[in-house]
């Protein structure tokens, strides 16, 4: 007898079984042809595995399983995704065409350079464009993502100081609004972190910075605009202080989306910066990755860049294009990646995005990103407290709490899911109570922004009149409120192992 599917209510959910649950012994998706080559003996038994508990299914079962699972997903293609500091902008589909062009797709990083001139020309041009956009003198495309770019940048800073015989610099200055990856990158290097507080306007506290600057400072890692979405009002003074004690200025490029065509970090005095191609330049992000985190450096650091860089090894003549190849910077810190970075997924998509927009289009991106964020901030600031309330850049941070209510930022975020919006970033930066960090990006139209604001205002009203709606949210999704504490404390991914799988073996 077949049971009719239960109607989905808040406590009864239809959940997709695992691929192992769907398996049936002997079921198969392909029929192997009879062998037409001589048989040979198997390797000794000790080398063979007797049990390999792979699921057994037909092709159609596999396709349906993963189609069902993919329908559980929420992505920027399915709805609004204001996840602050992540720049979850829409990824134009033309990028998917270009990165699959056969000339890019069917190449190998070990091919002779003469046979991959197109790939190298693209990488060279991308290096040139990133220089132009950022004001830096040299670019490496190798780093795999943002934090890898940070690590690369800090290695370059260390190599610079060492090359000058300046061995006592071990401290990195990092503001309290920084991304957690900044202290992590520094920690991996064995350096220590000195935290610099923010002042009441959300800028770097100049007094604290001045007190921390001495001849043991490697440099400072600053995100500008910072994670409050604010452009540091004293950026020139901050850089002057760091340079004044012999330190180098590192820019975390996570928030570059606010600056394209408006401010060039290299011109302001930054010495090193990583780009997040998967944020600013529309390379897919998160589970859609891989990311890509090129690093730009000022002229005095070019010799330390990772090798190899793409360079012109023979100038072109008349109609002849130049010959591209690989070059090694004089004092290179070495390779950061086995090959040349995330070429198809990262470089080709970012190249396409920059080419499609052009200089004016890139500037439009930043202006609309900033306009959209300010529009949201202005419409929401009477309902949600904005602790650092001034004109923001591409994102802003509000407090997800109300006087006399036990509703928290997490409850508001979960309730947003009931209205089919992805929640903003929660609880970051740490210097804001119950932080809700909202970044609309440039791609959202006014209707979407208004719909989001209307829902946020409605949720604030619900927090007063029906707080349990928020505490118990979401109720319209496939799964209800997850038990985050249990998930973090009981690290058991699965309650059972597939049949025939012996854990001891």
């Amino acid at each position, binding site marked *: 007898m077949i049971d009719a599917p239960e109607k989905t209510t808040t406590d009864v959910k239809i959940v997709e079984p695992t691929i192992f649950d769907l398996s049936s012994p002997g079921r198969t998706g392909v029929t192997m042809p009879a062998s037409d080559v001589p048989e040979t003996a198997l390797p000794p038994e000790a080398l063979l595995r007797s049990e390999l508990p792979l699921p057994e299914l037909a092709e159609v079962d596999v396709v349906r399983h993963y189609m069902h699972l993919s329908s559980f997903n929420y992505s920027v293609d399915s709805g609004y995704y204001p996840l602050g500091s992540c720049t979850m902008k829409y990824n134009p589909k033309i990028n998917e065409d270009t990165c699959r062009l056969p000339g890019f797709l069917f190449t190998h990083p070990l091919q002779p350079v003469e046979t991959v001139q197109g790939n190298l020309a693209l990488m060279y041009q991308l290096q040139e464009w990133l220089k132009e956009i950022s004001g830096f003198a040299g670019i490496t495309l190798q780093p795999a993502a943002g934090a890898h770019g940070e690590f690369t940048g800090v290695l370059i800073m260390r190599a610079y100081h060492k090359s000058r015989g300046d061995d006592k610099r071990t401290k990195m200055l990092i503001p309290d609004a920084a991304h957690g990856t900044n202290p992590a990158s520094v920690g991996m290097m064995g350096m220590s972190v000195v935290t610099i507080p923010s002042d009441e306007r959300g800028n770097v506290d100049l007094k604290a910075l001045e007190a921390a600057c001495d001849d043991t400072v490697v440099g400072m890692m600053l995100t500008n605009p910072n994670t409050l979405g604010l452009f540091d009002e004293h950026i020139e003074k901050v850089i002057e202080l760091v340079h004044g004690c012999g330190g180098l200025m590192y820019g975390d490029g996570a928030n570059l989306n606010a600056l394209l065509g408006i401010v060039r970090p290299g011109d302001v005095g930054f010495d090193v910066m990583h780009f997040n191609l998967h944020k600013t330049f529309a390379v897919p992000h998160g589970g859609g990755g891989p990311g890509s985190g090129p690093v730009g450096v000022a002229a005095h650091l070019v010799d330390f860049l990772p090798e190899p860089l793409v360079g012109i090894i023979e100038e072109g003549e008349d109609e002849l294009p130049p010959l591209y190849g690989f070059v090694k910077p004089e004092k290179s810190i070495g390779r950061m990646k086995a090959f040349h970075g995330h070429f198809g997924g990262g470089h080709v998509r970012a190249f396409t995005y920059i080419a499609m927009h052009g200089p004016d289009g890139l500037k439009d991106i930043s202006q609309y990103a900033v306009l959209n964020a300010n529009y949201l901030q202005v419409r929401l600031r009477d309902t949600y407290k904005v602790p650092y309330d001034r004109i923001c850049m591409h994102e802003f941070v509000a407090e997800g709490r109300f006087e006399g209510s036990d509703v928290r930022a997490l409850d508001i975020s979960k309730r947003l899911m009931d209205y089919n919006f992805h929640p903003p970033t929660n*609880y*970051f930066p*740490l210097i804001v*109570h119950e932080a809700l960090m909202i970044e609309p990006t440039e791609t959202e139209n006014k209707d979407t922004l208004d719909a989001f604001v209307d829902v946020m205002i409605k949720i604030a009203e619900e927090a007063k009149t029906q707080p349990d709606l928020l505490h118990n949210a979401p109720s319209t999704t496939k799964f209800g409120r997850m038990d*985050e504490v249990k998930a*973090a*404390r009981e690290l058991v991914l699965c309650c059972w192992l597939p049949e025939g799988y012996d854990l001891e073996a």
Partner: protein
Amino acid sequence: MNAPANLKYTKSDEWFDPETGKAGLSDYAQGQLSDIVFVEILVDEGDEIEAGKAIASVESVKASAEIYSPAGGKVVAVNKDLADKPESINTDPYGEAWMIQLEGGSAGDVMDAAAYEKYCEERDH
């Protein structure tokens, strides 16, 4: 929030008991962090440490935090049970969830309970 009068407190939210030499994370801090899911003590018995040294790393569902020693001295005991019971920092921050015990210790830059309560209230706005 709860701040026992017999303890001293740091601006970075650690407590220190001058009587016993024990130190841990304050009630205010555990409330801010919410449910704590992981804790690792970073010093060993016998270590000589200075006030301000990182003694533990704590993770909650919201954030992770370094815990700094509120005093200097010799570490005579570390709470080995804490790693298996990180939630005790939420339920009993001044008792079961002590982190280290110092001997011959001198408190670093600390304040009394009344000053600490005022300091926490200011930060709540």
